[in-house]
């Protein structure tokens, strides 16, 4: 597995791209993230993470819409790749297995 070190922010970005399905571009991703995590997200962090994740092979992008507009500045849309999906699943597996290992008493004691 290449670089399964997925930072928390990166994981959130991958999940958001998944949620947004065929409409995952910079600002939409930022909005959805803010909505779900209830924290302010800087658009520049989103873009940096997107580029990083694409290089790692977890995302692929293309420019949406034909370039009939002047200048051709269509939006760059992101999608999860197979690796992207697998790394998300793996991360979830690891988390879930660890959750299951925490003895009940910890939850009861702190609730």
């Amino acid at each position, binding site marked *: 597995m290449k670089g399964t070190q997925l930072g928390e922010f990166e994981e959130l970005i991958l999940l958001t791209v998944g949620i947004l399905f065929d409409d995952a*571009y910079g600002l939409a991703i930022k*909005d959805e993230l803010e909505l779900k995590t209830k924290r302010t997200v800087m658009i520049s962090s989103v873009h940096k993470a997107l580029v990083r994740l694409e290089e790692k092979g977890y995302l692929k992008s*293309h420019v949406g819409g034909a370039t009939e507009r002047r200048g051709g500045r269509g939006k760059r849309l992101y999608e999860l790749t197979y690796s992207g999906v697998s790394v998300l699943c793996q991360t979830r597996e690891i988390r879930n297995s660890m959750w299951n290992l925490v003895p009940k008493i910890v939850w009861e004691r702190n609730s």
Partner: protein
Amino acid sequence: MFSSLNILGLILGISSSLLITLYVNHELNFDGFHKNGKNMYRVVMHQPGNQVVGSSSEWWVVSPAILKPTWEEELPEIDLATRVRTREWTFRNKGDFIDERVHVVDPEFFEIFSFPLKSGVENSALKNPFSIVLSKEMAIKYFGSDDAIGQTLELSNGKLLQITGVLEDIPANSHLQFDFLVDFETLQTITGRDIISSNWLNNPYKTYLTLNPSTDLEEFDEKLRKYDVDGFNGQKWSFHLQPLSDIHFNRQISGTGDKGTLFIFITVGIFILFIACFNYANLSIAHHGSRAKNTSMRKIIGASRIQLINQFLSESFVLTLASFALSILMVWLGLPFFNRFLDLDLHFESLWTFQVILISGALLILMILVSGAYPAIYLSGLKLVNGIKGEISKSTNSSKYFRRSIVAIQFSVSILMIIGSLTVSRQLKYVENKNLGFQKEHIIYLSVWKLLSSGSDNISLFKQELLQNANIIGASASSGVPSRIGWSNIANWEGKSGDENPFFYRVKVDHDYLDLYGIELHQGRNFSKLQSSIQREYILNQEAVARLGFQKPVGEKFGFNDELGNVVGVVKGFHFESLHKSIAPLGIELADNYSFEYLSVKLNSQDFKKTINEIEQVWQSIVPDVPMNYAFFDERLEQLYAKDIQLSQTLNFYALVALIISGLGIFGILSLSIKEKTKEIGIRKILGAPFINLLNLVTSDIFLILGLATIVGGSLGWFVANEWLNNFSYRFEMGLEIVALSSVIVLFMAILPVSYKLIKSVRSNPVEALKNE
């Protein structure tokens, strides 16, 4: 004989002008068919500091989803509003998958715009989710007939949409063109989540609205300042309203209309009409002149002046009316060819508008008067003796002067138009032959990002598979192909100061890109073949190097945004945009699989179809349900100049028309001249004069007039042609030879037919000529 020449010229002139009128009408009435038109506006955003590379416009047609509900609530001046968004969906059509562009709209869409439905009810067509309205063409494409109500369309993900309406043909002069309409509800249901964001910078929507007619626009714009947002670079971005009528011609805000071209067309139309009318007047006067005998006889018999005037007027009335009628017939017959020739979609019915009828009526009256009244009054008042002697056509100096100036104008206009026609043709030839810095033949390009849906290595797999094909010389993946490199980012380099943020064009390519397109390196080398080099590699173009001030670019550090890599090479003269624009700075970057949009494929054999089929088979084996989209590179390149080609063909056509009309006119006048001088010609021939001498006799005036016309028409033409050529950053050197050539062409056109006539009359027996006294 005169009558037929006259009518022919007139018909040609009127029909040509009518055709132009149709075109002008088409352009000027763009979007004019909406009944709410006067109160319709489009929301646009002014984003200072956010321009496309190489453009100066800071205007964008964007708005956030939340704008509509917010404005509807807070701004009472707004009557109705709708958002429009385009999405790309894949439909299933009998086993094939086809990508289509779908327009997503609010329910108010049909209330604001006048896009009638052929079947279905506008107000309720999109009420229920999963309803879809489509155009007649699409109905036929998917269901075989335009009676598709109630049928279902299947999306590639299995969801079904019900057809609730079929659109009437959308006029060609509508800036909004679409094939499919769905409601936002439907989009939300299909994507399964709430897509409306409340972020004012998240703006993939267009918003159209109607205002209360009594709204003061300036005041309203002031109110919109409340919604200004902070843009990305600390600038204030603001919303404004653009009237519907401004959309087509406002090139700063994505308009496609060109007032310059329209102006040329209008001028051409007027010129042609001018020539035709002048011709008509000239020939009529000359014609009547030659019937002076007839007129005088009548007077002797006892016809009153009024009666004579009546006679002339009614004759010209009939003639003119007949010409008009025939012209309209010609237009009706010729319109399909005209449309195909110029790639337009004009309708005959558009002729019957108030303005056109009014102008035509006025023209008709004017022409009847000119051709009927002038000779009528002049001739009927003539001294009887002169009339009988047939000396009328030896006319007074003033009428001769009048005729000469008309001919001069005709010549000038013809020369002007030929210059225009030659200039555009020459420039197109220049464009075709110019070395663009890359090869364009035998290359197709495919959109390949969809290959990644079933495997991250698919693009290189696809490429390797294709290279096995003996008929495929090369393949290269990239994020853009020449003429389609829309991507730009902020350039980064060593020594960059904080407040410099220039945008450079950016294209990601593989190792084979430069080779496939035959792009030559001016300095340095192509990308290294080392798998994933530690540092990124870039190849810059000369303009980027100049902008960065690099003395020795190879080895310098460069990158986009926050990155820095090595510059390994420089290219020069790489025209990746049309020749209208000067070359903008570009950074070519070596990249791997991701961010590749296209695969360019260079083909070997002549049998492209076969090879393309083979490519498609490989495609299907990797992604069976996905449509393969490809295009021929050289064809797409040519589209960059579509408007210029259209202009060229129009000018060629009308220059020819102008020549013919003028030719007919000159022919008529000179024939008259020959007739007048029949005696003189006869005598000179007997005395042994050579042909040239005789020709000179008849045409001596013409040379003088032509000379004058060359100066007038030539300088005007030169000026206009240069103005037009300024549209291009790269153009051919225009020399005076174009003016000279035009002049010669016109001369030819004038002399040739007359010489023929002269020869005939000279061959005839001079005795006959002398007898005519």
